């Protein structure tokens, strides 16, 4: 069944679903309503839940929860040497190359207080898990990533990082600067630069007025000495969403308000002398990872009627 066929079928399912009695939440006994554009609300805001100790509250377009007054925030285990971080992401893969990735991400309130033991972020990744030069590096994969993060005790900052082909200082993370005010829509672009030999990846983070403009370059390492540069990674996966790290006490959990990822597109060719990011919009949902925390979901599916280009993917932390 093709993509369009699945969309038509899904539209029909949603119409049927909305005509039925509201779905029952699997947690805390709050009934939810899911309406055709994907928005979720509590069927009865303020209704008692969780044995009468809590009240149902619509938190955002994706979540209805049972909040118990005075109850501590849940903790999480998102990072130790054996288990890694927690993610709320959407992943697209394809056999042919993604020459770049782009998303608009709203800047949100984001914090990782003292004692949080890690960070919370919103970002995009362009990933190569299959090229020989990448599967043989220290992480067994290459990637370029860009976004904003709140590290322990610090204000949110823009950052970018790469894991390069080869085993010479594979991973490099760059701390750029403080973010724009909450509510700003920032643009994140990763693009293979076909004008450079060997190819580099350019990373742009900017706002509409370009009062924020970071323009950075991910370059391959040489083999050392007089060795030739290694072949550059070939992006075949794009991830968008949130990464959460740390295992804090309840008093120090990280937090991030609902962020929207829109204009999710991928480059169909490298940057050339025309200096244009030529792209197609994502038209399918991809594979969603929703570790809870963080919480991630499509508010508006790519290609749905009235949805932004590439859909509207949301992240939220940390419940």
């Amino acid at each position: 069944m093709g993509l369009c066929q699945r969309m038509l079928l899904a539209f029909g399912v949603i119409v049927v679903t909305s005509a039925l009695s509201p779905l029952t939440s699997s947690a805390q006994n709050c009934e939810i309503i899911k309406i055709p554009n994907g928005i979720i609300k509590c069927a009865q805001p303020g209704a008692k839940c969780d044995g009468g100790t809590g009240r149902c509250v619509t938190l955002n377009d994706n979540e209805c929860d049972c909040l118990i007054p005075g109850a501590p925030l849940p903790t999480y285990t998102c990072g130790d040497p054996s288990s890694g971080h927690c993610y709320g992401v959407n992943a697209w893969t394809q056999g042919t190359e993604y020459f770049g990735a782009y998303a608009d991400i709203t800047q949100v309130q984001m914090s990782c207080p003292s004692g949080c033991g890690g960070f919370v972020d919103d970002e995009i990744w362009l990933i190569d898990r299959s090229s020989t030069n990448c599967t043989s590096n220290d992480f067994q994969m290459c990637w370029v990533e860009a976004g904003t993060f709140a590290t322990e005790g610090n204000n949110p900052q823009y950052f970018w990082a790469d894991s390069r082909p080869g085993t010479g200082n594979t991973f490099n993370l760059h701390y750029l600067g403080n973010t724009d005010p909450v509510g700003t829509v920032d643009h994140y672009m990763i693009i293979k630069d076909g004008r450079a030999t060997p190819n580099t990846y350019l990373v742009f983070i900017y706002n509409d007025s370009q009062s924020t403009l970071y323009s950075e370059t991910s370059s391959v390492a040489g083999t050392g000495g007089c060795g030739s540069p290694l072949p550059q990674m070939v992006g075949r996966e794009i991830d968008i969403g949130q990464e959460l790290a740390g295992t804090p006490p309840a008093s120090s959990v990280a937090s991030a308000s609902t962020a929207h990822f829109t204009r999710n597109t991928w480059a169909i060719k490298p940057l050339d002398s025309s200096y244009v990011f030529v792209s197609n919009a994502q038209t399918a949902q991809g594979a969603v990872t929703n570790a809870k925390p963080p919480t991630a979901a499509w508010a508006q599916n790519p290609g749905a009627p009235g949805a932004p280009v590439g859909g509207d993917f949301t992240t939220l932390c940390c419940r």
Partner: protein
Amino acid sequence: MIKNIVLLGVLALCASMTGCDSFSGSQQEPTKIKPPTGTRQRPQGVKALELKPSLAQFTQDDVTQYVRTHRLAKSVGDLSQLKVESMETLTAREVKTRLQNASTGLPDNTRLVFAIIRGPIYFSGPPGSKPVAFDRAYAVFDAATGNLLMSGTLEKAKRPTK
């Protein structure tokens, strides 16, 4: 209810008959976005080390204290065992050479402090990746402000991760 079921059936029949290739991503008109061409900002980094007025710059002890109390981004594991193996003042150009062509994003003559950190220290990557242990990592500080500008991996641990 019956109307909705009928509608569903009609939609499914329509989907199976039309093919709907006109909605596939392969036939969409590509969009064009111009990368920004304004004046790029210089990376500022994150506030890290306090400059002491009486000294030319911060000390190796300062850096040790910092990395034992502030987790380098994207790293996991016990901070208390980290040691600063060496610390040098280099130009941005020299740091780029040390890091095998990894750009600092700064003018070549910018003074930086390049610290090598002895681990083990673990770094993780995108979803689906597992933490990888490294015997040595690095941190780059702005010599003028003490801000942390870069961090990353150097030598992978030879023993397996715990």
